[in-house]
Structure formats: C-alpha cells, structure tokens
C-alpha cells in the first residue's frame, strides 16, 4: 500500500466509493472471446480502465525438447506490460514483478487445464497489458481462461478472478487504482466456480481475521459475477449474440 492522498474520500457517508460504485460493485467489465488472427485462441478484456489482450498457442511442440514432460503437457504463461500501459513509461525488459505475476497466473490456471491429455506438448498463454488501472492480474487471469477455451483446450472449469480489499475500514469488491494506492488491503482472488476451488490468492495489507474471512467471501462473490461474463463472451462468439 503506497502513500495516502489526504484529500481523496475513498468512501462517502452514503457508502459510495470514489468512482461512484457501491462497496460490493465491480467496475465495468467487457470480455470478448477471439479477435486475434494468428493465435489459436484469444480474448480481450476491459476491466475498469484495464485493457488486456490474451493470445494462446497450443498444444504445440516444445523447444528446447528437454523442457517437455513425457507424462503431461506443460503450461507456459507470460504476463507483460506495454511500455505505454502505465503512467511512467515502463522499460520493455520483463521486471521481477512481471515474472512473479506470470508464475502466479500460471499456477492459477493449471488446476483448470487438462494438460494430462497432451503429454510432451506446451500450451502458451501470452498476456499483454495495453492499459493498466489496478487489478491487472485478475483481469488477465479472467481473460486467459476465456482465451484457453477459445483455443479449444479442454478445461475442468473456468477460472474467474476479481480482487476484494479494504479501504476506509470497509471490505470492498474490486479495488481500483486509487483504492490500491491509498487503501488498506488488496486481495486478488482466482476461483473455479463449479469446482469451488480458489486457485489464486494473494494479499497485501493488514486485515483482522474477521476481515480476512469477509474479504475472501467478497472476492468469491466478484469472481462469480466475472464467471457469468466469461460464459457470455464464449456464448456470444460461438452461438451469436442472440443470448443475453
């Protein structure tokens, strides 16, 4: 949690947040399945002001060979931010933060992907953050699930993701950039709604044990909202826009 801006009111007397949302209301979310021409599967997500593209290749051969596994397929994930995606221009080389988030997202997707069906091959998930606004890892994970499904990779469940957090001593859903900078805690959650499994969970910031429980509950609530939008995105692509 960074320094606090004294003039920013994170939550007003009516329980309305700095961007007009209620405490349990996510930002505007738009998910689109497909879109990229060369990738085997792809998705685009706008999550608040986050704009993220995900492309998937695979299952395909692994180079170098010794990285492949004779018993199962492997999942490789790269999370990467464009130089222009953040306020201060980002150096194009991958940062330690990007390497860690790549790993966390990979481990959040692995329980959902039936890699055992494709021994010796790799599935590559490439995440590109075009514009960042707090909560990129959840938005990226949600889009990556849709892109994997769009690529026809067999999956046990979708992984939907949303953050919960704490600001103005209140547990809130989907922490935005201001709330992350000035707030008290941020807890990104990735969740498989059908299998009821949490596959991504992180926390920065201080919570009492009671707040901790409420925060996980709130985040899972958000994941379920995202899950519906993921299903809609895939339905829209494969069955047209008739169903809403």
């Amino acid at each position, binding site marked *: 949690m960074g320094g606090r801006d004294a003039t920013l009111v994170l939550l007003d007397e009516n329980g309305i947040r700095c961007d007009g949302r209620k405490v349990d209301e996510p930002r505007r979310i738009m998910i689109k399945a497909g879109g990229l021409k060369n990738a085997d599967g792809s998705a685009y997500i706008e999550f608040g002001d986050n704009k993220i593209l995900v492309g998937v290749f695979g299952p395909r051969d692994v180079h170098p060979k010794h990285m492949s596994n004779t018993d199962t397929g492997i999942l490789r994930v790269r999370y990467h931010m*464009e130089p222009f995606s953040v306020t201060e221009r980002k150096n194009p080389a991958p940062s330690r933060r990007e390497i860690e988030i790549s790993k966390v997202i990979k481990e959040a997707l692995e329980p959902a992907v039936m890699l055992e069906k494709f021994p010796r091959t790799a599935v590559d998930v490439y995440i590109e953050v075009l514009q960042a606004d707090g909560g990129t890892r959840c938005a990226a994970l949600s889009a990556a699930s849709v892109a994997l499904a769009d690529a026809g990779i067999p999956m046990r469940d979708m992984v939907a993701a949303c953050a919960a957090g704490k600001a103005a001593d209140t547990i809130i859903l989907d922490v935005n950039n201001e709330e992350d900078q000035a707030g008290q805690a941020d807890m990104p959650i990735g969740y498989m709604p059908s299998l009821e499994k949490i596959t991504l969970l992180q926390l920065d910031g201080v919570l009492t044990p009671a707040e901790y429980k409420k925060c996980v509950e709130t985040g899972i609530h958000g994941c379920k909202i995202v899950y519906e939008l993921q299903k809609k995105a895939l339905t829209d692509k494969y069955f047209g826009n008739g169903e809403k």
Partner: protein
Amino acid sequence: MASTSVIDELKKSQILELLEQGKRVDGRTLDEPRKLIIEINAIPKANGSARVRLGDTEVICGVKIQPDRPFPDMGDKGIFICTAELLPFSHPSVETGPPGPDVIELARVVDRGIRESHMIDLTQLVIQKNKSVVGVFADNVVVDYDGNLFDACAYAATAAILTAKTPKWEMKDDVPTLVEGGESHVPTTTIPVSVTMGKIGNYIVVDPNGDEWASMDARITITTDSNGNICALQKGGNGGFTFDEVIKCGELSVKVGSKVREMLKQAKERGQ
C-alpha cells in the same frame, strides 16, 4: 518468418504465376496497398495512441511524453525515440526475449523515417537548455502479423504523434514540474509516409502481405514528406534492385504515399 519451406516454394510459384498475369493473391493491383484503418486514442491513458490495421497486420502505438535529460551536445533539442516489438501472439514463430536483428532493424527504420523528415519540431521541446528536455517515446507493439510491419508501425507511430497531447513542464528548484492546464499538441512540421515495396521475380508490389513477404527477393522502404520529397530509405532482403527499379520505387513511394497521407491527415483532424 524468414525461413523457407516447401510450402513457401509452392506459394511463391503461385504468386509469381499470378504476377505474370498482372494479378496478386489477394486481388490487389501491384501498386495498391491493403485497406488501412486508423483508430486513434486506443489507449486513452497514453499521451497519444493509435491502433492501425493494414490488411490483417495490426499494430498499436502508444506515445508517452515525459521530461528527460538531453543527449550530450544536443542540449537544445527534445528527445524522440521510437521502438517496435512483436507481441508473442502476433505469429506462432515469434519468440520472447531480447529483440533479434529483424526487430532492431524494424524499429530503427521506423524511427529514422520519422526523425529524418523532421516531423517533430524538437527545438520546441526544451524545458531548460542543457538540463531538461521533453522526451517523446513512441512504442509500437505488433498485435497480428501479415507482412509489412514497416508501414504499419510507421503509420501507427505517425498517427499517435499527430494526435498526442504534451503536458507542459517548467523548472522549479532544478526539477521539471508539471504546469496545470498547459497541454498542447506535439509540435509537428510534416507528415512522413513510409511505403514498402517488395520485389518478387521482376515485379515490384506495394505493401506485400505475409505470403508475399515470405516469397520476395528484396524489399525497399521509402519515406516521403508532405512536400513529396524522399527523406529516408532502406533496402532489405537477400536480392538486388536495378537502377530503374530503384527510381520506379521512388516514384511509387511518392504516389502511394500521398494517398496514405490523406488518411493520416483525417486521423489528425479527428484528434483535434
């Protein structure tokens, strides 16, 4: 994207056969670029941005503008840097990691086309001489590859610069400090347009698509400015051009370039 396979050889024969009849694989005439779509302000949080589709090639350019130290001996000029990166989902053959020679050349050719045209008036981007200047960073990312990244990146960068707004800074306590409400357009003097032509057999085709790119013997990228002058050029590929071909390519770049320039002008106007 440069490796040659049996399929590439077959495609090349087919492309050549069609060219002998004056036709191209996608139905274009030889001097006709693909459909160009320029979407501006695709990344609202950047100072300027554009998303360009040239046929099935797609590029996003984001422009970031921020104070920087001037280069040595260039203390009276702002900084302009243009980069290019192939996102790994833009083609199955793209590898992550540091850029190879192809991508380095791409970035440098796009950079020089804009730089040598003197498009940006860098003398207006000085905060304090020798101490602090304004840096304009135009970063291109290739989203989808179908040949001719040179022109797609050049158009994206040019459109992003033409529509970018630069904040204003003043020195306070030796630190460049933002002046509220001081935003203005990036000062520009001309609109450079890059036109890339491929040589396949003895035919010159404008704006080669992915299949043509894999089949061509050599290529040439020529940038012209608003006066119809030639301001930058790069030959590439492992073949050669005759003198006449080089002159013809110069003429084509002026002709095709003037049409593309109209589209960039319209993009600029949409950005006012």
